[in-house]
């Protein structure tokens, strides 16, 4: 029993840590620009494949590869905004469609370039082996990832509340026109926001995927839909909501897998049921301040 509970807690936190990092960026962009960036999951997936290729082409320079890939993804985030989102940002449907298209493009491009579609990138595992606690053993890389995720989320919270850019981001998210009147270049703030979100997705991927394998170029969609569910649960645009929502999804998933009959089949359905119930009671989501736009 104690092992089952540990199992539920550990994997709930692990799942939550991934979802929180991915959803945070997704939610940030929605909150600031009212933009649904459907390519967000593709950033996560692309990070994995760039790491895979980096690992094969420059096997001796793993650390440099990670840094380089994170920078590339951040830049791709920026380009997504400048080239695709900005020209269309007055039409929300347009942004959704074009970023959707970008995500497909990246996916198909990887299918064409990559000879094989699923692969492990475990050369990037920083902490191999396992640690035992209360009779339950945990993969060190996952422990590291969980800690790293908590640190990154805290630093991010600090950045948003204290830094100048953070204040500008909050100002734009609350009233774009009023923010412009304060001399804020809202487009630039939005550019930084999309870049930050891509950066967070890239960090999440480069720490989590080495212990998780690349299951195919389509895996970006799984994470996109999960984080979409998370921010609906947490409240569209709420940063606290996306972190809390991520962990709730994580715990519900692992609880379902372990304790419910036929749980593993239902592991990804029960969280959606929970979300439905939450939305019936509180249509704006747990921490939602705004109505859906």
């Amino acid at each position, binding site marked *: 029993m104690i092992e089952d509970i540990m199992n539920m807690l550990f994997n709930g936190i692990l799942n939550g840590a991934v979802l929180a990092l991915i959803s945070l960026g997704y939610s940030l962009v929605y909150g600031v620009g009212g933009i649904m960036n459907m390519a967000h999951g593709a950033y996560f997936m692309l990070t994995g494949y760039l790491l895979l290729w980096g690992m094969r082409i420059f096997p001796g320079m793993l650390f440099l590869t990670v840094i380089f890939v994170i920078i590339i993804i951040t830049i791709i985030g920026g380009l997504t905004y400048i080239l695709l989102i900005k020209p269309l940002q007055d039409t929300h449907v347009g942004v959704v469609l074009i970023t959707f298209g970008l995500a497909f493009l990246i996916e198909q491009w990887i299918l064409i370039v990559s000879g094989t579609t699923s692969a492990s990138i475990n050369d990037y595992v920083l902490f191999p082996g396992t640690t035992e606690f209360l009779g339950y053993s945990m993969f060190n890389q996952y422990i590291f990832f969980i800690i790293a995720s908590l640190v990154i989320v805290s630093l991010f919270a600090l950045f948003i509340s204290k830094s100048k850019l953070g204040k500008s981001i909050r100002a734009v998210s609350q009233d774009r026109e009023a923010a*412009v*009147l304060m001399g804020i270049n809202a487009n630039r703030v939005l550019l930084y926001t999309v870049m930050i979100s891509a950066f967070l997705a890239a960090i999440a991927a480069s720490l989590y995927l080495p212990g998780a394998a690349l299951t195919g170029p389509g895996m970006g969609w799984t994470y996109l839909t999960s984080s979409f569910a998370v921010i609906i649960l947490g409240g569209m645009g709420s940063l606290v909501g996306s972190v809390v929502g991520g962990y709730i999804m994580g715990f519900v998933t692992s609880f379902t897998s372990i304790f419910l009959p036929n749980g593993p089949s239902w592991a990804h359905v029960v969280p959606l049921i929970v979300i439905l119930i939450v939305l019936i009671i509180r249509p704006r989501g747990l921490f939602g301040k705004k109505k859906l736009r």
Partner: protein
Amino acid sequence: MGTILEVKNLTKKYGGLTAVNDFSFEIKRGEFIGLIGPNGAGKTTVFNLISGFEKPNSGSIRFDGMNITGLRPYKIVNKGIARTFQLVRSFKFLTLLQNVSVACQSKRGREASKSAGIDAHASSILAAVGLVDKARIPPVVLPHGDLRKLQIGKALGTNPELLLLDEPFSGLTHEEQQTLTDLILKLHDDGLTIFMTGHVLRELMNLVPRVIAMHQGKFIVDGPPKEVANNKIVLEAYLGGGEAFA
């Protein structure tokens, strides 16, 4: 006293409707000037054109000798023009101090707060608009009059040379109007150039030494309040002008 704002032949069309039609005027540095006209006369459009929220179809706007026609809003703010909206706009979930300090981080705002520091400068602005005792609370709980003051405070945070106030008195109680009037007069005395709109003439007449009147997007008359109030076209525009002067 040089010219601070020069608007020439400004025209703005929406499809077949001409909201602003060949509109020209000048404002001198340090002036306090009102823009009047009935609802729908195009006052807010003029403000939107000056502050960059909309682009004119033709005509030019020069500020301090620089051509600012069609610049993006945040760039115009950084040149030194601040404005408020008719509807209150504020960052609902930041405190008043944070609201103003966001503005103090703008290009001109930073220069102004260089000596004191951004937070200190922002509190001094809050003190000036009479909100310093509420610095730590968010605007969601404030009454309407205080929100108006906050708007002006935020505009001041960007350290403007010209302040555009769009219908600052609408929806305020008599008492609130009084304190706001005092505040605006004080800002003017401190040397700020102020350009404000209103559709009820009486408010403006008592306040400003010079008024520009417009109707259906067109310039009608420019002069001291008394003169403008007696203009025939103005009287016609305000059908049953008695209401306007009541």
